[in-house]
């Protein structure tokens, strides 16, 4: 069978007490996909399984047609970068932090970055608009700036696949849109394949070409936002009544919540 760019086949992984199983997922090169699902449905677990933080129980993952297990750790890091959910960092300057993205390219005895490494780090810091903060400590940046620096670090790895775990959580709407616009631009201009976990269904609908919906450790459904974000599916998985409409501007589906208060009022 011809494999697509990134392919997950009958994949299971997990911890004692929680298991993610039977995941089948394919990403085309240059696609922009989102993983959605309620809290505890296994989205972050899938990421940890992909990156090898927890061991695979069953199934295989292929990147560019090659079994991910056969990649060396450094080779993996040159092909795939991850922006994790929590950025807890040491006392480290933004520039040094971003430069760490070059580590997968260093030899064992190479202690210092080359000129090329520094140029690349600067380039991606400019692209993500954190260059002006390069001498500040990571801890001195705001949440949105930290997130952008984390993306700059991931880009400095020059990966083909970028994984992001809730890149917009705890950001206000301005910063949410800025981060997602940036990711969209990287996707369009550099052909970067993006797979991100995202909680906000409306943002997911707006930005992603493909959505994957998780529910209780299983893949519930996948497809375009129009296919996935239907009234029935959302109610089944999230157990919350919603109304779906279409965004008049982008023609993408939009979800409206129906609160208990509203329901009471309408029954009276």
């Amino acid at each position: 069978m011809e494999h697509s760019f990134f392919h997950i086949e009958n994949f299971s992984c997990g911890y004692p007490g929680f298991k993610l199983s039977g995941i089948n997922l394919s990403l085309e090169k240059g696609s922009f996909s989102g993983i959605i699902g309620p809290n505890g449905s296994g989205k972050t677990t899938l990421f940890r399984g992909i990156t090898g933080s927890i061991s695979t129980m069953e199934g295989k993952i292929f990147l560019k047609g090659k079994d991910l297990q056969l990649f060396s750790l450094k080779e993996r890091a040159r092909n795939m970068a991850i922006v994790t959910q929590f950025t807890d960092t040491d006392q480290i300057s933004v520039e040094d932090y971003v430069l760490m993205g070059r580590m997968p390219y260093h030899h064992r005895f190479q202690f210092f970055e080359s000129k090329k490494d520094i140029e690349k780090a600067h380039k991606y810091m400019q692209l993500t608009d954190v260059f002006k903060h390069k001498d500040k400590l990571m801890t001195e940046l705001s949440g949105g700036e930290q997130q952008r620096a984390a993306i700059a670090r991931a880009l400095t790895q020059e990966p083909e696949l970028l994984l992001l775990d809730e890149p917009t959580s705890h950001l206000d709407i301005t910063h949410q849109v800025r981060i997602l616009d940036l990711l969209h631009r990287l996707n369009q201009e550099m052909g970067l394949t993006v797979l991100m976990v995202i909680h906000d269904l409306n943002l997911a609908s707006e930005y992603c070409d493909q959505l994957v919906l998780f529910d209780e450790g299983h893949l519930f459904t996948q497809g375009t936002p129009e296919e996935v974000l239907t009234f029935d599916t959302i109610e089944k998985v999230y157990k919350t009544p919603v109304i779906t409409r279409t965004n008049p501007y982008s023609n993408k589906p939009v979800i409206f919540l129906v609160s208990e208060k509203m329901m009471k009022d309408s029954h009276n």
Partner: protein
Amino acid sequence: MLGLLVMLSLLMAAVALGLSVGELNVSPGSVVRMLLFGGHEGSMEYLLISRIRLPRVVLGVAVGGALSLAGVILQGIYRNPLVEPFTLGISGGASLGVAVTIVMGLHLSLGSFMLPLSGFIGAFVIIFLVYTISSRRGAINIQNMLLTGVMISFIASSAMMFLMATTSSDNLHGIVFWIMGSLDEPNTGLIKLTLIVSLAVLVISYLFVQPLNALRLGEEKALHLGFNTNVVIRVLFILASLLAGICVSVSGVIGFVGLIIPHVLRLLFGSDYRFLLAGSFLLGGIFLVLSDVVARTIISPNELPIGVITGIIGGLVFLLLMSQKRKGK
């Protein structure tokens, strides 16, 4: 880089000072001349410096360097700035080993080498216990390890208290003296071994300097950057234990060095391990050689335990630096 060169020259200066100061002062000039060109083999000064002071100063450099290096490595893998070589029960184990030897009189029947040997064995029994208890299914849980170490350390020190409470006062004196730590080591072979091992570990640690830096972002992110964190942490843990085990068996328990030296360097120069590893070694050496000078001159002709000096001076310098830093911001 400049910082390292400055520290290297400071270390040279500290060594020269350590050789020249004592009950009988020799001018630094003639010390340097003696080091470079040799001296009159029979002269009093030559004997004093080559036989008595040089081994002591060399041991100071080796132990100070090794303890700080072990401290900085452990703080790196635990991502906890309060860990030091002795937090993990290494000193407790070594002290217990020595206490057992003294109480059973083994150092009298088998020879004085039993003291460092039993210290080393004690330290490694503890390390082995901590390591196996916190390993599960091939992976080590680093936070578990820290707690296990602290607990085992308590058990070891209680066992030692028991021995001290029940033994004769002669033995008690021997144990207390050993625990307080000293750079007075008659066996030059042991001193050479300590120096060689600590320098070798310093060189080896640089093979792991990149993963150590990556670990600053956490274990998971270091993995994402392409480092096998499981292997890196194990190897570094064993290296640090080896350093601490040797130090404690040769010179007893000299506290605070492994905690304070890396801290001071972090405050002054940041947390880049490419600098910190060598920097800690050098500054640790400087600090211990100078502390020893103070320890043996301040109440001359008697001598204070060096742990007293490292604790007081180290703690004060650290507090001072921290308040300066706060004012600066």
